[in-house]
């Protein structure tokens, strides 16, 4: 038995030895563009991750196999497990940042809030742009202070605004919001607290009553919270939970007799995994999302024809084709690809480095025409980034759960970003001050 110990010891030593020389086997070459995939396939969020990566990988395959790469530049990718933690995220980043066998990194997607925060300053030093879609620093919208952070499409601030705008739509105009009660049940964490500020502001502007009820992590017992909801008796509930706390919330809401079709889940509470465990109680549940579920967008037809039917899909379980998370993977991949494409327009049809990737992102402009070519119309919103604005978009669609599937019940609902921008500038200015940074000035062609 001692021997087995000795063995494990030898194993560790062997680990040390091999570590230096352990070059992952993946044929990449300097004429290719490296797309690092920081993934999480285990841990609390694994169930969603597995589909996201499938979506990304399928789209990258599609670009390579059908479109012959981006303007002929083939993509090469490799996975690194982050377990959704900061430290593993850093390890992966450090492993990947210099590219793979000469294939450079143009954009990096940390895929996970902790890693995103941990990397935001390293990335600046290494001149590698970070794309955080639907998470990450909201204040990084201000590209003058955060030149290498891109919280594209929908920050939590914009999400809050879209929610209010949608409710106004349902109630029949902003004037109707006055005197209404909107309760936010949020996961008591950095993520959950992000919307406190904007909702306060919006409540003042539109005169609705803003009720905030925190749910402590992990949130598998919420009777206290929903008893409070029942007591306050709001008109709408904005559900900003995640992971297990979402199904528990939906079930508990039903138990306290709150109408589920007046609960609006946020982007991390908008997948089938979030509602399935709640069973019948979730029927009629609403959710905001920048990447709606559905398998009959144009891109899905193409993917089905060229990837799935050829058996090249990364999906283990094909019934997840078109799920929210799969589609989020598609959208994430598309943003990266389009950024590189834009960059190539300036720097030439070759693999780009981080600096060039950032230029591409800041000049990204995806309009309906482009979406149509990509086959993303309806699945992805218009996205126009600039030096000052690293979010772009700022819209979401609302989908409703019918017990088995999501059905889209709204068009793109735009956030009132002008209203919230001062809040963001305030935060970014504070950050700049704390760090002693001088924001760059945007000349229009960085």
């Amino acid at each position, binding site marked *: 038995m001692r021997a087995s110990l000795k063995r494990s010891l030898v194993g560790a030593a062997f680990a040390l030895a091999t570590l230096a020389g352990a070059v992952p086997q993946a044929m990449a070459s300097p004429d290719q563009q490296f797309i690092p995939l920081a993934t999480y396939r285990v841990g609390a969020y694994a169930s969603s991750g597995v589909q996201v990566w499938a979506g990304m990988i399928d789209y990258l395959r599609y670009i390579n196999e059908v479109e012959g790469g981006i303007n002929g530049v083939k993509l090469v990718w490799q996975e690194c497990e982050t377990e959704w933690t900061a430290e593993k995220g850093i390890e992966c980043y450090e492993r990947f940042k210099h590219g793979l066998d000469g294939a450079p990194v143009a954009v990096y997607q940390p895929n996970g809030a902790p890693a995103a925060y941990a990397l935001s300053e390293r990335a600046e030093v290494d001149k590698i742009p970070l794309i955080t879609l639907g998470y990450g620093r909201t204040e990084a919208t201000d590209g003058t202070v955060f030149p290498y952070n891109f919280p594209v499409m929908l920050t939590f601030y914009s999400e809050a605004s879209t929610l209010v705008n949608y409710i106004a739509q349902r109630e029949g105009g902003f004037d109707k919001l006055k005197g209404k009660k909107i309760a936010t049940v949020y996961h008591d964490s950095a993520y959950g607290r992000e919307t406190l500020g904007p909702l306060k502001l919006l409540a003042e502007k539109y005169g609705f009553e803003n009720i905030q009820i925190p749910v402590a992590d992990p949130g598998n017992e919420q009777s*206290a919270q929903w008893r409070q909801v029942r007591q306050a008796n709001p008109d709408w509930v904005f559900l900003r939970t995640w992971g297990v706390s979402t199904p528990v919330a939906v079930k508990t809401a039903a138990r306290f007799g709150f109408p589920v079709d007046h609960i609006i889940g946020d982007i991390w509470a908008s997948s089938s995994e979030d509602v399935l465990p709640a069973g019948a109680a979730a029927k009629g549940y609403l959710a905001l999302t920048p990447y709606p579920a559905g398998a009959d967008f144009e891109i899905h037809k193409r993917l089905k024809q060229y990837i799935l039917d050829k058996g090249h899909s990364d999906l283990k379980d094909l019934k997840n084709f078109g799920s929210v998370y799969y589609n989020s993977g598609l959208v994430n991949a598309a943003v990266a690809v389009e950024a590189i494409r834009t960059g190539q327009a300036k720097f030439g049809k070759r693999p780009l480095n981080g600096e060039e990737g950032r230029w591409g992102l800041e000049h990204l402009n995806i309009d309906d025409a482009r979406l149509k070519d990509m086959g993303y119309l309806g699945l992805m919103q218009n996205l126009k980034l600039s030096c000052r604005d690293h979010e772009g978009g700022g819209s979401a669609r609302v989908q409703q759960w019918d017990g088995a599937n999501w059905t889209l019940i709204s068009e793109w609902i735009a956030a009132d970003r002008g209203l919230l921008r001062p809040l963001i500038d305030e935060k970014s200015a504070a950050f700049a001050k704390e760090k002693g940074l001088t924001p760059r000035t945007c000349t229009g062609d960085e």
Partner: protein
Amino acid sequence: MTFFFETLLGGLLAGTMYSLVAIGFVLIYKASGVFNFAQGAMLLFAALTFVSLHDQGVPFALALLLTVIVMSVGALLIGRLVLRPLVNRSQITLFMATLGLSFIIEGLAQGLMGSQVRALDLGIDDVPLFVGPLMLSQFDLIAAAAAVVLVTVLALLFNKTRIGVSLRAVADDTTAALSIGINLNRIWQIVWAVAGIVGLVAGLLWGARQGVQFSLSLVVLKALPVLIIGGFTSIGGAIVGGLIVGAAENLAEVYIGPLIGGGITPWFAYVLALAFLYIRPAGLFGERAIERV
């Protein structure tokens, strides 16, 4: 006032869900002096096994039976590979071993049965139920009933059967039990199996509420304060402790929470437990050992 009583009752009922988890601990601690941190993992494993079988189309009863068998085999292995080699080691050592054990079980559970969220429908609809002005949860009532049944069964097992008798003997005085020829390993394996089954019951009820997934193993953290308050060695204590924690949590969240920003449930139970410790260092029902020098 109705609201207060409603909160109180709701809390008490929610508390029984904690008790269910805590009972598993008490069983094992009584019999083998092991503070089994892996209880949460066992709970997850049991629920996952059941759901996986059920999803394969195995009928409910059969799936239940198969899961029970799986858990018993698991208990057998644990007894052989972990407990026997560690016999008469310090309690802390055993506790740490169960930490390792929980890693193994979680790894196995996710490796074998995947990490996606599984829905589990026991056919209990979780709708409001009005008793006069008070609104209660049908689900909680059933959970409470389950707890009661479970405890009665266990009580019978302990007091009426031979195993139960020898089990109590072991709990009271291990050496004496050995001297009258009780097979310790067998007792342990039985107890761990029973604990596994208790875990299954708890896992099913919790799973029905939140879906069967990794975070199911976290309910173990809810059970610790219950144990402190009730004492590690008393099933009755586990029940009472659960009720106290459930009620206190709910009242605190509703009445104290708003004053200090809410979301206080994860630590409030522990602080409550601390308060109890100061008053009764061995819990409400736990016996205290006199130190011999």
